[in-house]
């Protein structure tokens, strides 16, 4: 039997990162148990804070599981004995109860509109997930009787499972909770990342291997974020293949090196006061961005190194465009997203980039990591970009409808847009001014003025979801770039009407551009925009007002 230090090996010697995880877990379990006890001990007055709103029954059930896990952590010894069957059974029972709580809570996420979802449910989901994570982490670290007998498959899957638990709490529940919540989860991920990065230094494949390391760590290796130059994959960049390139008909004005003053003046002195400021392509926004230099986002290996070797979970949209039939959202690992959807050539052994025209797998639909607060989920990637100074200007209100204006934001809203060639964001408008920064690859964008809103054929409420900011018009179909979706069973008069609408829409003036890596498009508040990824494309949008 191995001693504990040998088992965790590298990680313990290298800054005790895993023991830090254990410490954080022990504390969290104790804290959750205490909070539950406090809620159950007080009369039902303070129902607005914390977990209390979920009802005493669930608070009590969570508290009981927290206590079990807390006991488990308190009784940890330097060399833990293997679990007896009774103890193992007890652990799996706690796990089942935590999964019950998580599933009960998840139902609430559907039952309420997210904006009406009481905070307590998000916190309950988060706390139950933290406990589940702690239980699994502790379990995987124990000496197992079967270690020698059965050489377990890659522990990779174990780690992927553990990571998924916390990512779901971030993505679905927003990592809610004052005492723990997102802060706690971010810290746990940071520790796991350090353990993983240290492990990288051993030259093993990037597995979260808690068993005896094959080699000792050589000093100076495995530093945070540094990718080992393995068979040249570290320097490989995303394919620049571009299956279709639409023509640019009314190019948007491009300006180099625009000062803050000049930009404010562009906002303040529009040519036409009725429309407000015009769209612009700016070329100096990404200056100094690590994402375009030292932390290159166009290298899969770098992005994988920031996502626990692609094990982190991300929400992606599956389907060509969010108004299409069959469109849906899915949570997949970042690695799966890269290898299966973004750039299938990555999983090929090593292909030279000249071998162009690689068709994607025939029946794989398009997946788009769209409008995701990636930087809240991955704080390390947030450090690779800088908020453009332009976001600190004061832009004018909505040109035609002040009721659309949103309360002033404290800081810009950041969203990531990462997808393969052919992603489409249908014609729509947003209630903010927007700087769309193109980091990797190329995108086509077409804009229509807010004065044309009536001719945009806005949708209404569809199945209880307000779609008024999205047009019925499919720009790609009208231009003949895409096929008409097949699902329409319309009669002749509908079809005729449709053709009239499309004909009329072709008359509406627009401006357009193709964004190159490093370009930034300023989309003024209220302008309708249609966005189309041409190659593998990674953009960041900054909304501000």
């Amino acid at each position, binding site marked *: 039997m191995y001693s504990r230090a040998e088992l965790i090996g590298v990680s313990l010697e290298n800054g005790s990162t895993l023991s830090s995880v254990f410490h954080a877990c022990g504390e969290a379990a104790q804290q959750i148990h205490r909070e539950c006890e406090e809620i159950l001990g007080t009369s*039902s007055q303070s*129902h607005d804070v914390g977990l209390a709103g979920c*009802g*005493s*029954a*669930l608070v*009590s*059930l969570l508290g*009981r599981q927290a206590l*079990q896990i807390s006991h488990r952590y308190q009784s940890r010894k330097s060399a833990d004995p293997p679990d007896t069957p009774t103890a193992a059974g007890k652990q799996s*029972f*706690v796990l089942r*109860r935590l999964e*019950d709580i998580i*599933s*009960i809570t998840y*139902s*609430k996420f*559907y*039952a*309420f*509109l997210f904006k*009406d979802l*009481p905070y307590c449910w998000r916190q309950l989901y988060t706390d139950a997930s933290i406990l589940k994570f702690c239980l699994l982490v502790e379990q995987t670290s124990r000496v197992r009787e079967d270690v020698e007998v059965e050489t377990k498959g890659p522990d990779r899957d174990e780690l992927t499972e553990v990571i998924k638990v916390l990512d779901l709490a971030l993505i679905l529940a927003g990592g809610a909770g004052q005492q723990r919540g997102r802060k706690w989860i971010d810290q746990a991920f940071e520790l796991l990342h350090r353990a993983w990065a240290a492990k990288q230094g051993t030259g093993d494949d990037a597995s979260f291997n808690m068993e005896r390391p094959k080699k000792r760590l050589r000093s100076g290796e495995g530093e945070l974020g540094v990718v080992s130059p393995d068979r040249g994959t570290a320097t490989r960049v995303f394919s620049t293949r571009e299956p279709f390139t639409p023509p640019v008909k009314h190019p948007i004005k491009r300006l180099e090196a625009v000062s803050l003053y000049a930009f404010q003046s562009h906002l303040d002195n529009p040519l036409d006061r009725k429309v407000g400021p015009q769209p612009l392509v700016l070329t100096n926004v990404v200056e100094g961005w690590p994402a375009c230099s030292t932390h290159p986002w166009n290298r899969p290996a770098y992005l994988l190194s920031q996502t626990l070797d692609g094990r982190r979970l991300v929400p992606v949209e599956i389907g060509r465009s969010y108004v299409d039939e069959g469109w849906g959202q899915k949570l997949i690992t970042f690695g799966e997203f890269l290898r299966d959807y973004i750039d299938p050539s990555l999983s090929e052994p090593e292909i030279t980039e000249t071998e162009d025209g690689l068709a994607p797998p025939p029946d794989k639909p398009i997946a788009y990591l769209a409008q995701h607060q990636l930087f809240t989920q991955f704080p390390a990637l947030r450090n690779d970009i800088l908020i453009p100074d332009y976001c600190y200007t004061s832009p004018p209100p909505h040109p035609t409808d002040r009721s659309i204006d949103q309360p002033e934001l404290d800081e810009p809203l950041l969203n990531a847009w990462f997808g393969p060639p052919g992603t489409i964001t249908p014609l729509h408008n947003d209630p903010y001014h927007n700087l769309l920064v193109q980091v990797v690859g190329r995108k086509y964008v077409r804009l229509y003025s807010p004065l044309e809103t009536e001719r945009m054929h806005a949708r209404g*409420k569809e*199945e*209880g*979801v307000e779609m008024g900011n999205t047009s019925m018009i499919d720009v790609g179909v009208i231009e003949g770039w895409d096929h008409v979706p097949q699902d329409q069973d319309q009669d002749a008069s509908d079809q005729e009407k449709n053709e009239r609408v499309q004909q009329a829409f072709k008359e509406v003036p627009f401006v357009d551009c193709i964004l190159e890596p490093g370009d930034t498009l300023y989309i003024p508040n209220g302008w309708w925009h249609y966005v189309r990824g041409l190659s593998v494309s990674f953009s960041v949008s900054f909304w501000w007002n």
Partner: protein
Amino acid sequence: MELYATGFNAWNQLRFGGPDASPESQDPDDLHGFKLVLRNSSFEPPHASLSCTLVKTPSSVLFAGYPDDWVKLHDLRDKMIQCLAAIAGNGIIAVYSEGSVQQYQSLAHYKAMKGRTVLSDCEINQIVAYETGFAALSAGQVWTWGDERYCACLGREVSESSPAEKPCLVIQLEGLPTGRIRKLAAAGYLLTAITEGDDLYAWGGHPGRPVIIEGISGSPSPVLVEENDIRDCAVGEFHVIVLTSHGDIFVIGDNVNGQLGYPIEKASSWTRVPGIATGSTISAVVAGLRSSFIVVVIAK
């Protein structure tokens, strides 16, 4: 009479009385098969919420599990037991009283009597709730209302004149070949109705969840359980249990907490649960969100 139960038991909600019946004693495990949980000369079919079970006998209300907040409000509790009040998964409460249906946004609104009338001048026989809305039975007709996002659960068209959040009749449950509707059941995103002639109809669905019964849609359609007439039906969040006119029990759906009462991982088609209450007569089936109950009348 006897009550058998199976399924989710985290708060001992399937255990009436006895030394270890407190909701927090030990950590009670789920029941993975129907077990006798109550014997009494007479009682009404139980009302089962997530964490507690209530059974009304001629003299009192028996109770198992962890009391929900509403259990302390006796007027609401009694209406819940009579199926004249229901609480949806989103916390909204509907209560029938004196010819009208009142709706409350939450229990706090109910306590403050801050409700609004959603249906008036009616005589309601039964109100059931699903995750985001309600169905009510009135003289053989079915009214539905709820969140527009899950309009399949309404079983009817949603339009300006018949909005989702206002009770409207389910036209497709009118003029059925075997008579009018006599009983409703609902939970999760699935609703069922039984006709006077013992046919079972179902509707509902959630775009993000696998269907429990194949072929269910937003339009009520007949459900065949191996050609049987259906005496009773109960719906849980992820499962359905029916009682046939031959006295057989069939289940379908998830079995994560043992709610099917049969040792299988899940039932994607109707599965008969054998060997329950031989020599006795099953009079009713009831479902909690993750549990099932069978009411047995012992043959004299």
